[in-house]
């Protein structure tokens, strides 16, 4: 269903759109109002964030900005939590049935959202049934207290998807018993395949292919195979020709898929026959195999491999676990496919060090031009990504145990598979939100992960990615950049001297994002101190100043490893982000509401000091949050985005890198697509 253009009917703030949704007589007379309601309290402004998904056992709140519903201030309304319904279902079945047993009466207070934050559920709402990733719920403010959804009521849900989701605990097994089989089609065609025992009743299922690394075995990924099969996926881990190199490995990835398709009638007595949905594939590779799956996808893009069964459009996701980077971008790039990188800071094989391009795995994340996400875990070693040898291939402090590493893998790969192979947008929260904000239980509270995320290019307006304009004073969008910062340098994200020891003459220390000269990722680095706070402001082009129809502001930032200031801070860093309109009004949000920049992993080596590669984190702030509580900010006429560092906005001092400042637009796709902002488009 295409999205209706809401802007025409939106007021000054796009998140308070009024839409005609329902065909019931009452609704037809007057539209039901749809706004965001479900979310979580924040400690500071904007005091509340509307979210798409909740983990099981986590409390669910609603927040009502009285400036959005001024006509209801002082009124009592009944709040209903209802099993999610489609618009058609709502129009045919308007009666309200609260899944908690009974609705909750609240009075809408004046002034701020702080006075209108209410707990809906302490974490008892049922999760999904069957193999679904999440259960959907709608929220209704029954304004006329008549127990039915009507014209005067307010809805979070309906068109565009449920008001919110309760996702399953993603590291836990799914509802299906899994079957494991091992067989071979000949040389380098041995396979370890997993599928649901009740596959005969499940129709076609997406296929997940796993390509192992060098010296690894195809039987070492059963922790992923069993888990994903229990959730209704077919998983095939295959013999991989990694010894010669990733180019050879890429070919075995492809030939093994063709063999599986050819032989499905004979494998496991034909249990898979007709059940493999070859048009919904995910490829996961580890180390040389992690590079191999990218190369395999590139072969399809460059017509260097032809399959009778599939082409590049059938690959929905490519994920590399700690990939090597032997190949230069001309022959190995993820293109526009959805891409994911899982990497660990304690890896002693693909080390992530500055001393060799082969180990700079972040480079593959940078090469991806489609929707992409990165999961980077401090203390994770190379060997714990498989289930074979009892050797972690790790160096550094606070090493993550194998069981915890596998829990993270199970959780994030189920989320990825659900998102990209089943279009379950509820899983996007694991990638779009920071780890601090939203994550599955890792087994230890002290685990540190950073996540990066970037939607597909068609959903972005890039303000400054530092790629096209070498001048600091000019953004990628061609607008002016105004800054006040110590030691600011714009340049290539490459650690030139190959060591992590800090030297003043190498400002891009710790940046391992451009392994080869053909890889060209740029950004900016600078310092701030208590007596010298920093600002970095990017102007918006006149044609792009109306943000009422847009969704969020995104950027990524990191601390600079082994820099004296980083060592002095010895902790996380926060700062402020401001939107300013053309009339001079502004609104500032502190990043600690969403996440904070980690100190790079305390690993030594590669020169004096402690600290490994710089750990970027994407922070995504919904644009509507800047206008919370009647903030005098005109989203129709935003002049600039400004980043503010210093005591007034968070940490007193820091050494930071900043990159990829962009506005996330409304998805042009339908609400059943994997567009990441299905929830957000309701705003």
């Amino acid at each position, binding site marked *: 269903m295409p999205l209706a253009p809401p802007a025409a009917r939106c007021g000054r703030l796009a998140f308070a759109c009024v839409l005609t949704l329902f065909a019931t007589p009452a609704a037809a007379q007057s539209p039901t109002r749809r706004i965001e309601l479900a979310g979580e309290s924040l400690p500071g402004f904007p005091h509340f964030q509307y979210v798409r998904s909740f983990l099981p056992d986590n409390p669910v709140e609603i927040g009502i900005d009285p400036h959005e519903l001024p006509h209801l201030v002082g009124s009592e309304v009944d709040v209903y939590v209802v099993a999610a319904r489609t618009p058609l279902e709502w129009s045919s079945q308007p009666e309200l049935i609260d899944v908690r047993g009974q609705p909750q009466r609240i009075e809408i207070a004046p002034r701020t959202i702080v006075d209108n934050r209410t707990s809906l559920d302490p974490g008892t709402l049922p999760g999904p049934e069957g193999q679904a990733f999440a259960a959907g719920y709608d929220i209704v403010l029954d304004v006329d207290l008549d127990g039915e959804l009507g014209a005067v009521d307010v809805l979070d849900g309906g068109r565009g998807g449920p008001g919110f989701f309760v996702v399953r605990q993603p590291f836990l097994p799914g509802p299906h018993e899994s079957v494991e089989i*091992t*067989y*071979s*089609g*000949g*040389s*380098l*065609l*041995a396979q*370890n395949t997993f599928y649901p025992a009740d596959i005969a009743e499940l129709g076609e299922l997406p296929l997940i292919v796993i390509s192992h*690394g*060098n*010296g690894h*075995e*195809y*039987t070492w990924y059963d922790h992923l195979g069993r888990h994903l099969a229990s959730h209704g996926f077919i998983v095939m881990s295959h*013999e991989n*020709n990694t*010894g*010669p*190199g*990733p*180019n*050879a490995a890429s*070919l075995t990835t492809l030939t093994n898929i063709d*063999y599986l398709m*050819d*032989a499905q009638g*004979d*494998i496991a007595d034909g249990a898979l026959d007709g059940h493999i949905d070859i048009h919904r594939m995910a490829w996961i590779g580890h*180390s*040389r195999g992690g590079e191999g799956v990218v190369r395999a996808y590139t072969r399809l893009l460059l017509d260097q491999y032809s399959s009778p069964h599939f082409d590049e459009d059938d690959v929905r996701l490519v994920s590399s676990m*700690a990939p*090597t980077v*032997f190949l230069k971008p001309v022959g190995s790039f993820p293109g526009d496919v959805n891409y994911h990188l899982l990497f660990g800071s304690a890896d002693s*094989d*693909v*080390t992530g*060090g500055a*001393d*060799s*391009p*082969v*180990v700079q795995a972040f480079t593959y994340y940078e090469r991806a031009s489609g929707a992409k996400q990165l999961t980077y875990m401090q203390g994770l070693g*190379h060997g714990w990504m498989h289930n*074979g*040898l009892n050797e972690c291939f790790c160096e550094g402090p606070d090493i993550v145990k194998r069981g915890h590493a596998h829990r993270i893998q199970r959780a994030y790969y189920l989320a990825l598979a659900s998102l990209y192979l089943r279009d379950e947008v509820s899983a996007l929260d694991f990638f779009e939100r920071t780890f601090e904000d939203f994550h599955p239980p890792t087994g230890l509270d002290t685990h540190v992960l950073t996540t990066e995320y970037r939607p597909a290019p068609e959903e972005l307006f890039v303000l400054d990615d530092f790629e096209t304009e070498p001048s600091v004073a000019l953004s990628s969008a061609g607008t002016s950049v105004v800054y006040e910062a110590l030691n600011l340098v714009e340049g290539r994200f490459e650690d030139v001297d*190959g060591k992590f020891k800090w030297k003043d003459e190498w400002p891009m220390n710790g940046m391992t994002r451009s392994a*080869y*000269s053909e890889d060209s990722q740029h950004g900016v680095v600078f310092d701030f101190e208590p007596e010298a706070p920093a600002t970095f402001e990017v102007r918006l082009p006149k044609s792009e100043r109306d943000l009422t129809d847009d969704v969020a502001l995104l950027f990524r930032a990191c601390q600079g490893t082994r820099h004296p200031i980083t060592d002095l801070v010895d902790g996380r860093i926060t700062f402020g982000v401001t939107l300013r309109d053309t009339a001079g009004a502004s609104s500032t949000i502190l990043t600690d509401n969403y996440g904070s920049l980690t100190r790079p992993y305390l690993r030594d*080596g*590669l020169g004096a000091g402690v600290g490994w590669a710089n750990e970027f984190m994407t922070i995504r702030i919904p644009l509507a949050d800047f206008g919370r509580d009647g903030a005098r900010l005109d989203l129709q006429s935003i002049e600039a985005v400004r980043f503010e560092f210093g005591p007034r906005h968070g940490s007193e001092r820091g050494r930071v890198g900043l990159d990829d400042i962009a506005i996330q637009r409304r998805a042009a796709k339908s609400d059943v697509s994997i567009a990441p902002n299905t929830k957000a488009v309701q705003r």
Partner: protein
Amino acid sequence: MRTFLAGLALLGLGSPALTAPDPGTGPRADPRADSETAPGQEAVARPGGVAELLFARPFHLDEPYRHTWRAEQPLVHSGYLLVLEVDEGLARPRQTAEPVLFAGRQTLERINTGRGSGRLVVVLPSAWSTEQGFEVDLAETAFWFGTPALPERVDAAHIAKEAKLALELGVGAFEPEAVKQALARGGLALELRDSGELRRAAAGRILEFAPAEEELARSILVPLVRPR
């Protein structure tokens, strides 16, 4: 010979030239651009490290396959299935570039890793004719670990340079008697259909010579389903 080669590996003997980047990659603008050497690998970038030939069995295939362990990827119709006693540290698998295992003017295809045993089961391709037998004479062939690189990038010119370096260090062939014993242990030539059967034969040798890698051998010997 055995003692000398083992000494090379154990003593870390090697010339500075042997730690140079892949000689086939040409001049580099970026000092790191073409390096395949990962941290800490300089210590193993030397020839030698092949201590003993334990087993040798000739084979012939009905269907040839591509030797993907060198850049030219020649077709393999015949050759030797070998078991080598090696320096386990040099054979240790890693994701970054590993020391390439050479035999004369050829790269070897490794079937196992030598983990826990220091014994590698390898395939040495060699042309064969009824008139002249095998082109490669094991008694005249040197075996050694060369500079770390990806085998799929190693071509004839690269091998020639590595062979020259190895020769300078005195790497040579095994004693004829050792080769004779290995061939005797191997027995008659295997007549096989294809590379799949060759790998299964190799898996048998893993079970025999490198039992610590039984899991790998068993993973090769899984039941065949509609072989290609």
